[in-house]
């Protein structure tokens, strides 16, 4: 100690160290270089919460401790003045700084990260938050040490990858009532090949063969191709995206499946716009195409790059066999659950000209589909969802709603409001409920369902759910309850459900207006390893003197 003043300061510093330990945070650091005159540079700085005056302890590999205090701070480095100016710790010497609690920059979530836990699981410990990202990739260059910062890997530097799944599915339904048997067998694949040309593109396929026998005796074998497309762009490297083939219009899925081409571009401010051209395949078993040509365009506004708030407007014009058909405007608003609130609203607005095909539908705009929801997730694992839906059948030449008659297209309207909630009264109990009401062209009604799912009861890793429900519906009212017992096993899970319900039909004589209905259902899943997954289910259904049963199996191999 060459200065009595400094020695006194050092003693005070040493005296305060134990007291600081209980309140301060330790920031690990290393010596970058030593000046040889009692100061060293360390690899932590202002960004790590260090400030002038903070105490530092260095622990050389040879043993012992060197103490000092910070006399200068830069963003990423700091200068430490050692109490013993004669020592010269080598570069790499480990140590730590004591930073007062609260000063060190706290990790904060990116703006778009939801703070709510999954709705169906309790939160028993505070959720960890990812560290705040401070490096920017623009600062990276090839001459910098690799681990100084992480750079994005360009597609041309990556290998192509493939993956997907094969599946086979069978569902057999038999009833002794008028031979209402029906069967469906499906086998297909969903596969993707990413980055096949080193340009970040993706080739995708999703389709299956399905064989059906229907209740009316009809049988059919169909090939259903939901996707066969190739796309490029839409990434952080390439803001322009294009896609060709059969695909779901990714930017605005409300526009539907398309056989054609779509193009979109993301602007620097995150806004996105695009257009598409092609045919709309029919949404039935074989998905034939070629009759309905569509042109569509959209623009999406976002509040910032986190896209926590977005507003999308789209327009779609269709032609059926060359004749002008549907004029559709779409509006979509989405607010991501950055603070526990999840808001969503979509409108499908059909514009009618009042021509013959629009009989009963215009002229003018009509909301044919509306969906709005507001969801709130709570820290304890509970949540509430309020949703509203309006449906009307649009008048169009396209064969999109086969069972619906022209009269029903003209008059049908359905509004439904539903409140769904769940909470965890205890660590092992989840209470859930749904309250809903509807109004349609003929009547109105409501439904209520309340249940309690208890974990770790009766069986280890088991759960028991008891639910009661009531319904005032289109043709009468119902009251029922169901019990579900399930368990998670080492190789999967199983569930067994029994439901008993009494259905009361309006307008019938007292001795025939009630129907007691029993339903049994069991399912078993197997995780077989190596990507194999299997599920089997069986159900039985009894009412009056009638009965029905169903059997099903699902097998999947992921690759």
């Amino acid at each position, binding site marked *: 100690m060459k200065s009595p003043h400094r020695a006194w300061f050092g003693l005070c510093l040493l005296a305060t160290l134990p007291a600081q330990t209980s309140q301060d945070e330790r920031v690990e650091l290393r010596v970058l270089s030593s000046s040889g005159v009692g100061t060293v540079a360390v690899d932590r700085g202002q960004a790590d919460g260090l400030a002038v005056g903070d105490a530092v302890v260095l622990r050389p590999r040879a043993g012992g401790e060197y103490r000092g205090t910070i006399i200068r701070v830069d963003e990423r480095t700091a200068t430490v003045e050692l109490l013993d100016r004669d020592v010269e710790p080598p570069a790499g010497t480990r140590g730590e700084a004591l930073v007062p609690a609260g000063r060190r920059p706290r990790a904060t979530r990116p703006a778009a990260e939801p703070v709510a836990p999954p709705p169906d699981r309790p939160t028993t410990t505070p959720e960890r938050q990812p560290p705040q990202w401070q490096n920017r990739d623009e600062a990276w260059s090839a001459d910098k040490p690799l681990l100084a910062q992480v750079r994005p890997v360009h597609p041309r530097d990556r290998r192509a990858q493939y993956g997907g799944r094969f599946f086979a599915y069978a569902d057999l339904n038999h009833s002794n009532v008028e031979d209402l048997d029906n069967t469906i067998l499906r086998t297909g694949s969903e596969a993707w090949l990413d980055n096949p040309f080193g340009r970040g593109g993706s080739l995708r396929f999703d389709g299956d063969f399905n064989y059906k026998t229907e209740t009316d005796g009809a049988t059919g074998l169909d090939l259903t191709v939901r996707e066969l497309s190739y796309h490029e762009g839409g990434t*952080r490297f390439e803001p322009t995206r294009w896609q060709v083939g059969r695909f*779901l219009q990714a930017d605005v899925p409300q526009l539907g499946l398309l056989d054609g081409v779509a193009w979109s571009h993301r602007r620097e401010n995150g806004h996105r716009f695009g257009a598409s051209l092609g045919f709309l395949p029919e949404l039935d078993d074989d*998905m034939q195409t070629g009759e309905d040509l569509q042109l569509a365009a959209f623009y999406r506004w976002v509040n910032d790059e986190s896209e926590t708030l977005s507003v999308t407007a789209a327009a779609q014009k269709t032609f059926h066999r060359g004749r002008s058909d549907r004029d559709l405007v779409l509006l979509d608003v989405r607010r991501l659950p950055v603070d526990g609130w999840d808001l969503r609203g979509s409108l499908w607005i059909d514009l009618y000209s009042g021509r013959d095909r629009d009989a009963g539908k215009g002229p003018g705009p009509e909301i044919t589909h509306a*969906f709005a929801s507001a969801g709130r997730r709570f820290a304890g694992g509970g949540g509430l969802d309020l949703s509203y839906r309006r449906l009307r059948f649009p008048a169009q030449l396209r064969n999109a*709603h086969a069972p619906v*008659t022209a009269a029903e297209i003209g008059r049908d309207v359905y509004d439904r409001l539903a409140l769904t909630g769940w909470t965890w009264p205890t660590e092992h109990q989840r209470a859930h409920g749904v309250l809903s009401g509807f109004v349609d062209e*003929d009547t109105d009604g409501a*439904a209520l369902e309340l249940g309690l799912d208890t974990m770790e009861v009766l069986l280890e890793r088991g759960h028991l759910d008891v639910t009661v429900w009531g*319904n005032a519906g289109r043709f009468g009212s119902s009251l029922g309850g169901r019990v579900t017992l399930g368990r998670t096993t080492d190789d999967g899970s199983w569930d067994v459900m029994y439901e008993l319900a009494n259905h009361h039909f309006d307008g019938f004589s007292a001795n025939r207006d009630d129907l007691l209905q029993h339903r049994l259902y069991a399912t078993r899943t197997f995780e077989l390893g190596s990507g194999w997954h299997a599920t089997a289910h069986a159900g039985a259904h009894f009412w009056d003197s009638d009965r029905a049963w169903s059997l099903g199996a699902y097998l999947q191999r992921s690759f």
Partner: protein
Amino acid sequence: MATRHRSRRSLPAALFTLVFLLFACVAPQTGTAELHRWWAGLGPVLPHETFPADCNLCHLGSDWQSLRQSFTFDHGKETGVALHGAHGQARCLRCHNDRGPVSVFQARGCVGCHEDTHFGKLGTDCSLCHGENTWQAAPARERHARTRFPLTGAHANVACHRCHPGALAGEFQPTDTECVTCHQQDLANTTNPPHVPLGWVSNCDRCHMTVRWPQAQLR
């Protein structure tokens, strides 16, 4: 004369050299990352800041793209976001890829990564019908009890696509609850009594329950 000749030959060589140098200066370097054009402020595809400094714990070779066979990563422990079902088996790049920071897409829910094959008409909570092990929706006819048309009798044992024709393509458009919407053929085939000649072509529920056709009775 000889000097002039050398000048003529050296001019193209000098131009070539100049062009080469210019190209070498401005051409993109193989393996060098391009700048992020957007989302740069939200971080890299796979943040490594909290990872151990010993790269060999995970990486193999020199291309930084190959991982050791023994590589494991406890996503729940390391990030606070546990992966369930098939998500626990997925490759890192399926989520952490060129689209941008995964947190942006995670905030959108399932549709952040999975296409909304129901055309945006069924809301955002896929877990009502789908699990995380497979994308196959579990049969759940009992959920119909929440609608205006609880499934009774024979209706409770019919495949979904019989009433919702687009079901196999993801389109679950509600069907009109008027009986003839689905039972037009049954109406046409009824001869005892002959419904159509009698004008009994609608409001079947005046005589029939939604259980089975034979259970007709007068009010």
